[in-house]
């Protein structure tokens, strides 16, 4: 097993409580930051660490932080994106419910680095019970002087609140999240301006994923260089992978970036191999939005090397033969899986979750769902498969936010790599799995 930075203590009994968390080294990053570091020093350490946004986009966190505008007399906000909704992803729920204080600690240290005095954790409504766990942890942090006025006697003030959403995938997009936090529909905003200039209530705002914020804790404790020494190339540190589907041991695993995909799927330390010892058919490696790959392509790069669990290796070959690390939502499918029917569940999802602002996404996702339903029902034609391809290509790149791309890529990759399965549904004229 590799080094663990976030989940090293997740199995200690009582780690949810303040006392146990604190006695296992909790809140040291806040002490170190507030007493010995200037905010800009922390931004520098985060830059050095090479940490990249863990929500899916992989944008360098230190750079995102350095874009934050700092006009005089205007409040700045840090908002934690806990709207984990990408199908196949459940790592943030695990982290928040097992070690809630790690997120609270990360929020305090990061808020100090950004000069925020009020911060929010926006969590999806379906995680209401997790919000209650976080609220308890926050109350304990207030009681013990880590939040509130004049923290550790340094003059730094911070209030931290949890905001619960109403059930909408789109609110994981940062500007939709901010709209929702302002009490509105989650319609993404047109960028620019980016949140770093005009975010929450029009003020400069940083939005970071739960895992990203948590990673700031070891970065501040051990230094950015120490974090960057773990991993491979530009994929530094560790990554939480949510493993699900046809594997023996589904769950959340913290991996050192750079282990092979093969090891991750087959090793006892991680997924433990394919359920019922069947053969691997396909993997969606980074949440529903990223291209699906057949077994040979997920295990091996186009250059014939073993593919690694890293941003670069997973995307090697572009979309022709590669995919993305995304959110780390790793969905495994065995040899008996219908790729077309799995795709139908994705497309139905995107149709349901499209906010409706942009026509290509609103109409396109509906058409794709209808066409897939028709094909699965045994009424499709070859022309329908071509039409499906055509529609996804018209959505990609033509919408305000990335949901359009996210809806298009699974369709494109399924047709690219598994066209014969679509054709067999069409030519046989009867559905293997009738839709109810």
């Amino acid at each position, binding site marked *: 097993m590799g080094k663990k930075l976030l989940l090293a203590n997740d199995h200690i009994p009582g780690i949810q409580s303040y006392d146990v968390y604190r006695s296992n080294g909790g809140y040291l990053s806040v002490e170190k930051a507030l007493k010995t570091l200037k905010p800009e020093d922390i931004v520098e350490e985060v830059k050095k660490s090479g940490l990249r946004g863990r929500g899916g986009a992989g944008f360098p966190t230190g750079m995102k932080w350095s874009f934050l505008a700092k006009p005089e007399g205007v*409040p700045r906000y840090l908002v934690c994106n806990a709207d*984990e*909704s*990408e*199908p*196949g*992803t*459940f790592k*943030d*729920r*695990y982290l928040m*419910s*097992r070690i809630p204080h790690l997120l609270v600690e990360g929020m305090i240290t990061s808020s100090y680095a950004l000069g925020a005095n*009020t911060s929010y954790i926006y969590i999806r*409504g*379906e*995680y*209401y*019970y997790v919000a*209650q*766990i976080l609220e308890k942890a926050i109350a304990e942090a207030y009681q013990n002087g880590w939040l509130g006025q004049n923290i550790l006697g340094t003059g730094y003030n911070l*209030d931290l*609140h949890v*905001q*619960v959403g*109403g*059930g*909408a*995938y789109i609110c994981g997009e940062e500007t939709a999240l901010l709209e*929702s*936090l*302002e*009490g*509105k*529909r*989650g319609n993404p905003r047109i960028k620019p301006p980016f949140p770093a200039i005009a975010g929450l*209530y029009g003020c400069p705002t940083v939005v970071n994923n739960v895992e990203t914020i948590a990673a700031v804790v070891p970065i501040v404790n051990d230094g950015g260089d120490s974090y960057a020494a773990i991993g491979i190339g530009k994929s530094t540190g560790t990554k939480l992978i*949510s493993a*699900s*589907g*046809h594997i023996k041991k*589904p*769950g*959340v695993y913290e991996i050192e970036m750079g282990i092979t995909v093969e090891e991750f799927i087959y090793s006892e330390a991680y997924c433990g191999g394919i359920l019922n010892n069947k053969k691997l058919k396909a993997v*969606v490696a980074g949440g*529903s939005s990223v291209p699906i790959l057949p077994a040979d392509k997920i295990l091996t790069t186009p250059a014939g090397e073993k593919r690694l669990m890293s941003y670069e290796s997973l995307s090697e070959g572009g979309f022709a033969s590669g995919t993305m690390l995304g959110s780390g*939502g790793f*969905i495994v*499918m065995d040899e008996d*899986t219908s790729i077309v*029917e*799995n795709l139908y*569940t*994705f497309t*139905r*999802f995107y149709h*349901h*979750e499209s*906010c409706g602002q942009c026509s290509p996404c609103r109409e396109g996702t509906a058409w794709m769902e209808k066409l897939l339903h028709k094909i699965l029902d045994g009424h499709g034609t070859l022309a329908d498969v071509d039409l499906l391809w055509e529609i996804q290509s018209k959505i990609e790149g033509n919408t305000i936010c990335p949901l359009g791309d996210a809806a298009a890529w699974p369709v494109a990759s399924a047709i690219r790599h598994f066209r014969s399965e679509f054709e067999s549904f069409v030519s046989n004229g009867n559905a293997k799995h009738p839709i*109810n």
Partner: protein
Amino acid sequence: MEKKEIKFSNEALGLVQKMKSRYPEGKQKSALLPILHLAQAEFDGWLSPEVMDYVAQLLGIQSIEVFEVASFYSMYNLKPVGKCLLEVCRTSSCWLRGANEIVAHLENKLGIKEGETTPDGLFTLKTVECLGSCGTAPMLMCGAQFHENLTTSKVDDMLAKLKAENTRKTYLDKVEVNQY
């Protein structure tokens, strides 16, 4: 049905004040989503037009601002639902691990189709998109409680327990933390 006065309990009103205090002066509309959850829990599990009007008054905003939010998010019910709203996840990972069988079993046991409510008003069956519990698929949510790694016999046990309790489940319920 007799008409009930739409007013939060004092305890709920206290929570509303607390929710509003989390945002800067003049930005209290931010509390709308949490207050709608509270309203749904207080007023029989759904948001009637009268309840939405009441929430609008509490925040000093127009009713249409409440409706446009309530109708956007999938957790707000704009029609009455049973005491136990069974929300079965059906997206990829849950589908791969047998969500369709769970839905079929529930339809069979409850004698209703997806989207319907049992005649006694106890259960409403709904299919939903990914609830972030893919590693413990298949799963469903009832109120705040996740029911994970479902099998048909686990579903039977759950239904028997919910029937015996015969109480309304809400997202605000305190629940046992799931084991991993």
